[in-house]
């Protein structure tokens, strides 16, 4: 009987992936290793009109990302570039590239530059599998992520990833170093895009102002793209689109 229980326990343990594996799979659930995408961002503030911005983005691996605004017309040409820990902003009116901080918020919404270009949680955080729980009616792994160093945007993240084999992330809570919950992210609207199913709607809500939220909706994604590393340089940013 004891042997049977031990065997069953070993089987269950073998079936449960490690925290690193879960995080790696979740990292690739929305965008692949390299991707080109079209995105719509809506910033909602209580009592104010919604602000809607559309952009095109590219990412390569865990370190390189580029986003260019395409609408509204007055924002067209503005671009953000991420290369590792470095972020730059291109201002078309001044035709100038300016270095900005990763913790700075992106486009006046609830996402930081680091959130938008968070190309790999695996690189920034040490994950621990804290258990399994149901979230919004779905069985999930609960991961506790601890920042590897102080340069990372958040000290701690509680991350929920579907345990049904899809590894789709569904919810994340971001905490400051003092333990205060700063904001939370909900991922949903799983749809087939670019040849596979994936979450296509990301909603970041702020704990600082009730009712404030920013919604990112992917309008198109192409994972099968070949991108040159030199596309992700300030020099290339200056050349414009």
């Amino acid at each position, binding site marked *: 009987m004891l042997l049977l229980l031990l065997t069953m326990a070993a089987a269950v343990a073998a079936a449960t992936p490690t925290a690193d594996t879960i995080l790696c799979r979740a990292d690739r659930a929305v965008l692949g290793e390299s991707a080109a995408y079209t995105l719509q961002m809506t910033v909602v503030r209580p009592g104010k009109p919604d602000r809607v911005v559309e952009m095109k983005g590219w990412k390569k691996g865990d370190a390189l990302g580029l986003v260019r605004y395409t609408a509204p017309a007055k924002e067209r040409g503005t671009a953000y570039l991420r290369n590792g820990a470095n972020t730059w902003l291109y201002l078309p009116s001044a035709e100038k590239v300016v270095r900005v901080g990763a913790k700075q918020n992106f486009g006046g919404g609830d996402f930081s530059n680091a959130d938008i270009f968070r190309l790999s949680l695996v690189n920034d955080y040490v994950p621990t599998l804290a258990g399994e729980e149901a979230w919004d009616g779905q069985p999930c792994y609960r991961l506790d992520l601890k920042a590897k160093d102080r340069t990372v945007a958040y000290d701690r993240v509680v991350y929920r990833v579907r345990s049904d084999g899809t590894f789709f992330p569904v919810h994340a809570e971001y905490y400051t170093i003092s333990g205060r919950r700063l904001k939370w992210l909900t991922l949903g609207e799983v749809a087939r895009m670019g040849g596979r199913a994936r979450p296509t709607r990301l909603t970041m809500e702020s704990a600082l102002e009730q009712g404030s939220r920013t919604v990112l909706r992917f309008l198109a994604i192409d994972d099968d793209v070949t991108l040159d590393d030199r596309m992700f340089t300030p020099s290339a940013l200056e*050349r414009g689109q």
Partner: protein
Amino acid sequence: MKLLVLAMALAAAGAEAGSRQVEIGVENLYYRTAESPLNRGNLLGLDPDEDLLRGTLLWREVRGRARGVFRGLVEQRIGGRDRTEWRAREAYLQYGFGEAVTVRAGRQRIAWGSGFAWNPTNRLEPPRNPLNTGLEQQGADAVRVDVIPAAWAGVIVVAARSRTGVSDLPFANEGTERRTAAVRARFLVRETDLAAVVSGGRNQRTLVGLDAARTLFGQATAHVEASTYRGAEMPPARERQRFVRVAAGVLYPRGEHTSWTIEYFFNGEGYGDDARDAWLGQLEGSAGEAYAAAATVPYSGGLGLRRHYVHGSWTRSAVGGRWTTALRAVFGASDGGLALTPGIVYAPRGDLTVHLDAIVPVGPADSEYRLAPVRAAVQARIRALF
């Protein structure tokens, strides 16, 4: 004509998928003027109220790897000496050979350097309007080649021709023609942007420059841009003397929509009190063309008459939002002069913007910004975007 050439070249680039951006605008730059040490006896022929009324056009077309840009204006001066003229701020063609090499030819901005208000490593372009650095800048006639050998490095080689006169003022100031050859090599080293610049040519000093920018604590960014050269740009020439210019500052975003900048500028060849008095004394004693030439020194491609300046700005804006408010100020730490530029942008729709800037120079009567004949200015711009 330039627009026609651009259109033909882009048409020749083929029918690849592309994008087009068109902006049509109306601008009115109003200046309140007065006689001053730099406008003795109203030599510049200014009315107390001067207006520059403009129609503007931006056409930006991208076809595959080709890109064409035209940015120009028609200007009617309504004041002491009415005149109408048109000017292309930019008119260039660009073609990219993969990601590695891009060639751009025509009138263009070459906005290099990490400095906000001053770029001591950039002597290629016509100088910025000292009263409002937020205005669109005039480009230089140039051929520019960008080479990106690796993701951590970039090299720009430029041959440029430009005039040293400042535009956007209610009086003509052509300046002299500068022909410049320059190389800028940019590197990303240990999360720091580094750039080295060498530039020189006709009617200018040969300079060597360094530029560095880095993020601090994930939030703020800091920069230092410096150049050194032998011989002064402002009179007296001081041929044997080596000068240094340094711009150093910080950009600090605070909260959701607000950002602050502060930048210190050291202008090594700038006048001390004695040199300033000597220059003003020389102005007093000169007449005719000699006076006119000396009085335009502050507008002729220099980066300021004095040695120490501080620029500060506060901006509140949101991407896609309706309102942007800003306050810029340049403080002449050598003489107590201050140029205040409050501004507001209203965007009732995503394709329409209304800009309003005011310029208020204050400070002691003999300070740099009070020497100029402009007592106040209001600059209004309306843009429709397609």
